[in-house]
């Protein structure tokens, strides 16, 4: 036992303090991504862009798009839903390590495309975008509640809110992993 103590003490002594200027990212193989100076978004691996990635066919109803305040209104609602989720203790951890600048844009594009408000969706498909996040159905419910809150704040009629959710709900199989 004394030998063990001596051995560990010796090991402690011969261990040198790391140099002040140690590049810890290099030591641990951490790849630091730089935000795009214009968009503020982090780069993602290349993928094929297509409106099919939005996961559903769009509505063709000017009245429905108007209920959401058109393209600008939809973008605000999407950004607000992400904001609320970042502040929601139930699901904040999922968003903490993700590029919410990009998410606000792509989510807004997806809603805008699905609501027939004249956008193209440039994001990834739902399965790829949610890969390895470990999203549960409870997390989905929390996100739905935050989206509902954002739509309520924007005075979107409830039946129209449900029409957007009707496009999103069938995608749960691509998003929920456990």
């Amino acid at each position, binding site marked *: *036992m*004394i030998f*063990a*103590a001596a*051995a*560990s003490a010796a*090991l*402690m002594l011969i*261990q*040198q303090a*790391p140099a002040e200027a140690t590049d*810890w*990212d290099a*030591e*641990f*193989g*951490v790849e*630091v*991504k*730089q935000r795009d100076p214009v968009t503020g978004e*982090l780069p993602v691996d290349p993928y094929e862009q297509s409106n099919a990635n939005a996961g559903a066919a769009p509505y063709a109803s000017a009245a429905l798009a108007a209920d959401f305040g058109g393209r600008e209104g939809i973008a605000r609602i999407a950004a607000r839903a992400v904001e609320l989720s970042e502040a929601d203790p*139930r699901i904040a951890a999922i968003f903490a*390590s*993700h*590029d919410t600048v990009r998410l606000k844009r792509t989510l807004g594009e997806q809603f805008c495309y699905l609501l027939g408000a004249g956008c193209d969706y440039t994001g990834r498909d739902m399965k790829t975008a949610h890969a390895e996040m470990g999203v*549960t*159905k*409870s997390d*989905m*419910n*929390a996100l*739905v*509640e935050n989206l*509902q809150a954002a739509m309520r704040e924007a005075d979107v009629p*409830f*039946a129209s809110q*449900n*029409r957007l*959710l*009707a496009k999103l*709900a*069938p995608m*749960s*199989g691509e998003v*929920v992993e456990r």
Partner: protein
Amino acid sequence: MLLPASSLLAIANLAASVNPHPPHLAAVPVLEAGATLVGEDTAAAPLATTTTEPAPDEDTSAEPPPHIAAGDVLAGGKLLLTNGVTTVDGSSGGGLARWATIGGRQMKGGIGLSAHATAIELSDYGWRSYGVLVGFGDRLELSYARADFDTRDIGALLGIGQGYTFNVDTFGAKLRVAGDVVYGETWLPQIAVGIEHKRSRDGALVRALGAAEASGTDYTLSATKLFLARSLLVNGTLRYTQANELGMLGFGSAAGAGYKLQFEGSLGYQLSRRAVVGAELRTKPDNLGLGDDDWMDIFAAYALTRNVTLTAAYVDLGSIATIPDQRGAFLSAQVAF
């Protein structure tokens, strides 16, 4: 110079052999520091500032380790109203019709509790029921309900005594076998199978009235879906039953009438997250030849909070024990966690 984590662990264990503290006290900060770095490495979008310096041991060891507390298990995650209200049999559903929904507010991995009380005031009769339900994940519910059916003045008229009250205990179980009421393919409803075992507490009387038995078991198959594009909830349940007036008047008939397939349907329109209005139909057998009618209602349900749902309905229960035109008010309160 950096030592690999395994060397640090070895040192920690060696140190522990001369240290009265258990080894995990020394090992935890090392492991947690490693976990933090791995987490940042795999994160899709770490902020540059958070990855350039390793977290100090003191900070990481101060974080509570991941654990499952009672609060997590009981944390209800269902969307409002998707646990349904409570039927006259004590199951998650509408007021009259059983739904494929699972009661309680829990989601996968959680346990939920629900309790309810219901009163129906009819032209000549009064109904009171109350019960409890426990839900396991979004998968299984077990329920118990007690129903009391007060014959009031009709009791004297029927010769069974003024204010005679029939009592039934219902033990229910329901298992979700497929689908989801909200999510997944629009064409695939939430589907559940179940039983309801009912025991009349008036065995001698119901046999005298012509019933074959004082207890019986219903078998149910339910399909329920919220069609979001129309804000419409649609439910259909097939019930294989021999219960007379939900078991109040016993089961089957001494003359041989027994199990029959019955239908329960609900249509609900969602006015808001919290409010739904709709109508229901529940068909019933007439084993005793007393003119048992199908039951109908128009209802409004409101989620006062996440945990409290109130239901009010106008019910038309038709003829009960030969006394026609039993219509009136249905009121129910449900508390769910």
